[in-house]
């Protein structure tokens, strides 16, 4: 049965690129330099968190996260033109790899989260069930729901891996504003009901720094994710 949903029904929520590496202890000395270097390419960077082992910076383009064995760039306003995201990721990874003298990446990954909103959780569950992804007869299992509310696939070989997950869920956004500011900015309390589509494409085999052009790789992989996920959402009819 063809799914009534199409890929176009899903709106981007976040797009993340990440590299992992052997613990780079130079991080203890060079976080500041990395932040300085980033400031030359990104305006108004703010430090969200700075500890010896982990730091996070935000700017208009997205969030930078830096850890002893990984770093990532996330954009909360991804559009389907991946070029800017890929370019920003490249700037960040080039700076980090240069400063921390990383020559080998254990894993590089690109994760794309999208959501199709529904009025009720029941509707989103029905939409997921209609996709018939799990190929199971709808019947009550584990004395719980009739159809799975979450479906997860993983494809992996010795080189490349990918996961695609779909989940009918309600996301709650709560932000408490300090009492003295509540007159100016009301607190945020919002619920988003929908079907979350979460695709993660990653390498299994190590990647040498001199092999990897983040801008090219990310643009290519985002296109692959788009294409494959579109096919899965349409019922895998390819």
């Amino acid at each position, binding site marked *: 049965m063809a799914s009534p949903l199409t890929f176009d029904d899903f709106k981007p929520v*976040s797009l993340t690129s990440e590299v992992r590496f052997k613990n780079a202890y130079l991080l203890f000395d060079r976080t500041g330099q990395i932040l300085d270097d980033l400031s030359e390419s990104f305006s108004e960077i703010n430090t969200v968190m700075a500890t010896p082992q982990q730091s996070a910076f935000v700017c208009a383009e997205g969030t930078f996260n830096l850890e002893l064995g990984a770093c990532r760039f996330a954009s909360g306003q991804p559009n389907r033109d991946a070029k800017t995201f890929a370019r920003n990721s490249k700037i960040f990874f080039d700076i980090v790899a240069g400063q921390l003298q990383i020559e080998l990446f254990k894993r590089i990954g690109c994760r794309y989260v999208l959501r199709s909103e529904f009025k009720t959780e029941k509707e989103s569950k029905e939409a997921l069930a209609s996709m018939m992804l799990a190929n199971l007869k709808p019947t009550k299992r584990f004395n719980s729901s009739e159809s799975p509310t979450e479906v997860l696939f993983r494809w992996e070989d010795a080189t490349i891996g990918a996961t695609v997950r779909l989940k009918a869920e309600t996301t709650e956004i709560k932000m408490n504003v300090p009492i003295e500011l509540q007159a100016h900015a009301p607190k945020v309390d919002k619920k988003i009901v929908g079907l979350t589509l979460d695709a993660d494409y990653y390498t299994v085999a190590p990647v040498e720094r001199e092999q990897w052009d983040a801008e090219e790789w990310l643009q290519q992989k985002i296109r692959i994710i788009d294409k494959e996920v579109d096919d899965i959402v349409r019922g895998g009819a390819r």
Partner: protein
Amino acid sequence: MSDTGTGVPPGGLRESPRLPDETVTSVGNPFESTPLPARAITFEVQGALALAPVINIERLYEAVPGTSSQMVRALEVLKHVIELLGEAKKSDNPIEADTLIQSANLALPKLFSYRSIGDGFGIVINSLHYAFTNLRGMPLTEEQLNVIWRVLRELRERPVLSVEQAVQCAEELEERGLEVDPPDLGDLLDEFSIGDK
């Protein structure tokens, strides 16, 4: 392997539950599961990664039908050039070998148009271009053919090579008697050195 991360875990350093090998996200992980106690222990042999074979360049940048990636095109041209030079290496007929080498030489300007891949890439292609130009029609020696073939293979495996490594490649070419600087630059340098004397 765990998922690709997506940023700052809510509430500081505490990690949100993740699937094995997921890319971490800044919005937290909507897919919660009961954590396994074994997740707290990481079995990693120090230095083991050094022995793991790195990814094949063709798997890293897979050609996607209907899309045009500069890297994929550059790798295809490099593959073609390497094959031509490989055939030239094997050929017993000097005229046939020279024809193959000339065909490879003709592809260099195309590779030069992909120099935005990186400064190192541009330096190697430039060096090869001038190495051929400075031969002024003279055939390559077997040693020179071997070094060019080897440098191109290295470039195909590591197209984003650093400037330092690209300079090393250029030095390898020079060690085999190939001149990698522009002819005019050589004349200019000679003039300056004469002027110094």
